[in-house]
């Protein structure tokens, strides 16, 4: 375990020092800071638009950070040959991969926490939030995004065991898109009564297999407060369970591929 934690700690330190990530983070933070200026332009919807924009900025920036952070993870180690130094020590490949992933997720979590903190600070300073209950309602949305982006990072880590960074970037982005928009297609397909049952079955299989990123988009209730949300705790528990299970699958698959890879 200490091996995994050591690798995670090193990865976290590397990630924080990477300029490209800091630039992306800075852009996100700047957008968060100027978002309140847009409220003057939105008729009767100031708060809704402000919340939609700030949460959207956090989600979008986090997605970019999650992918950029992880696509270079394994290929860079191989290219710089640092992996030989690490693997020559009593470090198993699976420990290396899990350590790398945990380090990346920690860095992601830190950056997301910073953005969330700035967003909440903006809301508090501008008095856009009434009481701690409303603060909590908004704050838990980035938590769902964090779980979502951890899953995206796992997808990217899996691809990084065999694909080059550029290919990985598009593969991970593609999985994210399919995982988000397949739900809409699935709905259309499942409601089409004239469709071949085999096609419907295949659609259901894909719907079950491909990670469903859409399910993590729970921001609507925070953007438009007042909705009656049933079993919210169970939803967050389910999301966490679903993400952890899926991350485990992806990491195991990554470990299998990485074990077979010649480095």
């Amino acid at each position, binding site marked *: 375990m200490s091996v995994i934690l050591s690798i995670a700690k090193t990865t976290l330190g590397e990630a924080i020092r990477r300029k490209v990530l800091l630039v992306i983070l800075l852009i996100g933070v700047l957008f968060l800071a100027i978002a309140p200026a847009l409220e003057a332009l939105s008729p009767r919807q100031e708060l809704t638009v402000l919340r939609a924009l700030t949460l959207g900025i956090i989600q979008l920036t986090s997605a970019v950070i999650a992918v950029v952070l992880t696509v270079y993870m394994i290929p860079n180690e191989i290219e710089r040959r640092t992996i030989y130094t690490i693997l020559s020590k009593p470090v198993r490949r699976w420990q290396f991969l899990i350590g790398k992933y945990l380090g990346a997720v920690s860095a992601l979590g830190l950056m997301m926490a910073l953005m969330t903190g700035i967003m909440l600070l903006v809301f508090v300073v501008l008095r856009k939030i009434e009481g701690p209950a409303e603060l909590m309602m908004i704050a838990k949305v980035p938590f769902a995004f964090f779980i979502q982006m951890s899953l995206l990072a796992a997808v990217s880590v899996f691809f990084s065991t065999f694909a080059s960074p550029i290919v990985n970037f598009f593969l991970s982005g593609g999985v994210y898109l399919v995982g988000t928009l397949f739900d809409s297609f699935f709905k259309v397909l499942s409601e089409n009564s004239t469709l071949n049952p085999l096609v419907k079955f295949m659609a259901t299989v894909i719907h079950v297999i491909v990670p469903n990123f859409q399910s993590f988009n729970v921001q609507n209730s925070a953007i438009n407060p007042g*909705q009656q949300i049933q079993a919210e705790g169970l939803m967050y528990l389910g999301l966490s369970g679903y993400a952890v299970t899926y991350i485990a699958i992806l990491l195991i*698959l990554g470990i299998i591929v990485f074990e077979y890879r010649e480095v």
Partner: protein
Amino acid sequence: MRKKSPKLYGMLAGLAILQGVIHQGIVYPNWKENYAPLSGGDMQGLSADQLLFAFAGFRELIAGILWVRADSFFDEGNFDAILPIVRLVTKLDPHQIDVFATGMWHIAYNFTDEGSRSDRRYVPSAVALGAEGAKANPETYELFYETGWLYYHKIEDDYPEAVKWFREAMKRKDVITARKNILNNVYQRNGQVEEAAEYMYGNLEAAKLKQKSNLEFSARQNRDTIENNFDNHLVRMAQRGFFAQKGGYYDQFEYDTKPPFDVGFSARVTAIDAKRIKVEGTWNVLPVGTRVRIVLRDANYPSATPGGMVWNQGAAVNLDPPKELTFMQDQLFVKNQRFSRVIDLSRDPNMYPFTTDKYVVEFFYSPRQAPAYIQDKFGWNGEGMTDKNFLNTDIRPGQRVVYTKMELTKDQILRRGEWSTRVPVVQTSNFAGFGSKQLDGDVIKVPGILSSP
């Protein structure tokens, strides 16, 4: 590890099943129930990048950006451009209540001709948008209220629908106290006089209770307002003979609504120029406040009803109204017992295309829309009103209304063919003009001004 590990593959299979169970059993149903957009809907109108963002999970972000964009169109007066944005935003994020509310208002009120008359062909779409928004946001009173308001204020007809929507609004916990009072007016307009009294009584009791626990001035003010309205209503019920009608002794005593007053309606329509008509007529009621509805429409307008149309035309929000059809509705303001007005439809060919051959001009008056001081004479249902020529008790069940219609042809309205040199005039058989004495009534003589040196 390089050896195949059956345990690892077994674990993978187990996890794959587990994730499917968690997602399909807990997450997905919960998400669909609480967080999913209203419907996938068609996203036509979004640019490629917006579409990508919307589908990639940033629906609310795109909705927010679009709504910011809509504001600039409001400022520019580019109302046509706002409509698709409203539709897109409501599809992307069906919980943006203010977008629904603003969209309904915009559709129903803002498409106007040069004379500030709304394009009534859009109103069913506004109603459908309100119904869609209410369905998507059943936890709040707002869109139920807004839809009811459309029937009450814009349509001013079909009051059972208004009652239905306002009652739904009042069931919601978040309804604002000040807005609760509207339902008693709607009940009255729907002829439900007793329900209005019962509703006011219930509100009064609630306001009394609230006043005990809330010493703020607003609580007392609210209670006083309801009490005053309730008192007035009870007095009106007595004076207008409501209790007597219910008790079966209406014939035995004198009430304000007796005997029915003959309004002496007459009207004449003159096509003074192409697409310009002059409407004039008589209404023998001296107090100011009467507005007679006039409708000029295609004779075969598909959803037309006498003096209006079927406003609830289903759930589809159609932002492309029947542009080949004409439907003009306006109010004729009565002053000095007559009305006279030129209606110019020539400047708005899109609203009034006049594509078919036959048209009707309808005149409609119901005491339900009258101010209270006129209702004091006419009653809630027109029991104190009559017209020896045009009283109608069929077109609005339970009401005594004044209604008549006249026919015009396309050639007459456009002043072409044989009507290019002749002036088309259609009128009720009793129209006899105003006479010079009545015209004098327009001049308000202030002593001293005309005689000053």
